[in-house]
């Protein structure tokens, strides 16, 4: 159910954006990407015991990926990354979903803005066999 929900959100978001920005031309793209988005599972990033888990979060390069951040700490946290241009607040014992990418292959630093010692990296990898 979770992944269906995610897929729906992606498609609706994409459709709205298209209507606002590019019009009909985009409709074809949405249909074209529907397959790949559906196959795309969420990536889970957990914050517990004062650390991000995993500290190296692998995602496929060149694809918009949905990240679910679970905060199991007693304090709120803020996922922040300058190289990813992301700033996402997550209350204590809560979870928040956001998107990263599509990214070029490489490593992207992130940290908890409420505790800069807590750090990690998003590692975008090109799929084996892909160009």
């Amino acid at each position: 159910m979770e992944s269906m929900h995610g897929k729906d959100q992606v498609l609706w978001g994409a459709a709205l954006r298209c209507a606002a920005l590019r019009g009909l031309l985009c409709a074809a793209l949405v249909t074209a990407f529907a397959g790949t988005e559906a196959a795309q599972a969420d990536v889970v990033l957990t914050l517990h015991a004062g650390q991000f888990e995993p500290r190296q979060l692998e995602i496929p390069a060149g694809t918009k990926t949905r990240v679910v951040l679970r905060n199991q700490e007693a304090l709120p946290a803020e996922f922040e990354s300058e190289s990813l241009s992301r700033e996402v607040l997550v209350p204590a014992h809560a979870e928040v979903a956001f998107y990263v990418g599509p990214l070029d292959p490489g490593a992207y630093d992130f940290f908890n803005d409420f505790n800069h010692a807590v750090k990690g990296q998003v590692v975008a990898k090109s799929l084996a066999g892909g160009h």
Partner: protein
Amino acid sequence: MGASAVIIFREVLEAALIVALVLGASRGIPQRGRWVLAGVGLGLTGAAGVALVASSATATLSGDAQALINAGILLTAVLMLTWHNVWMAAHAKELKTELTAVGLAVSSGSRPLTALLMVTALAVMREGSETVLFMWALATGADSGSGLVLGGVLGAGAGVVAGILLYRGLVRIPLRHFFSVTSLLILFLAAGLAAQAAGFLNQAGWLPSLGNNLWNTSGWLDQHSLLGQLLHILVGYTARPTGIQVVFYTLTLGAIALLMLVQRVQRQRSQVRASQPHQSTQHTPPSVHPA
């Protein structure tokens, strides 16, 4: 204790500096203190509400929705600051004479008091909700001692003091230059907030990034250092901006400056016309009439 003090300080600092700037820039406008105070009250209430909703949510929160709310708040604040600055472009002279105790009443009607109220409320709400969320977690957390809470309170106090210092510094500026300086500060503040909004709109997927990390001045001035943070709040310093942020910054700066200029020119023209009722004098430079 130190950690929580720093976090809360950073959150409160942003709101405090914005309120101090707005309070300074609106000097001489009757009743502005009451309206700004009401804004702070509204903002705190809103912050508590946001924090309550966010912390009681059981489902997965949407990062996109969060980004859009942030962008909405920031862009509304930009509009209000624009309104304020454009109004000031027309009325700074009257306010100056009022402050020098000549006692000329400021033309009422469209005084930007609503703008003051809203900017204050929005700034306090945006930064305050994170503060409230954090303090609430500290106060109720089983594993956190009272030291953390004390740290948070000290941090909040330090943020407010920074705001007061900025205000005290502002009012020392000679009256001749005062409104030019504050208008310029508000102009850059608005541009910086617009750039932040662009970042959130890009995050939610509503705008293209037009290039990530257009440049990187982190090695030069870290955005998370105290100076970097101050410049980030006041003039929108961003060490690694996206293209769309630079576009928003530049457009906002240009648009507000243009509106202020137009307003000032119109004002001067209408004053010249008022002091020279004869048609034939239209093309001669304004001259001083003998009293």
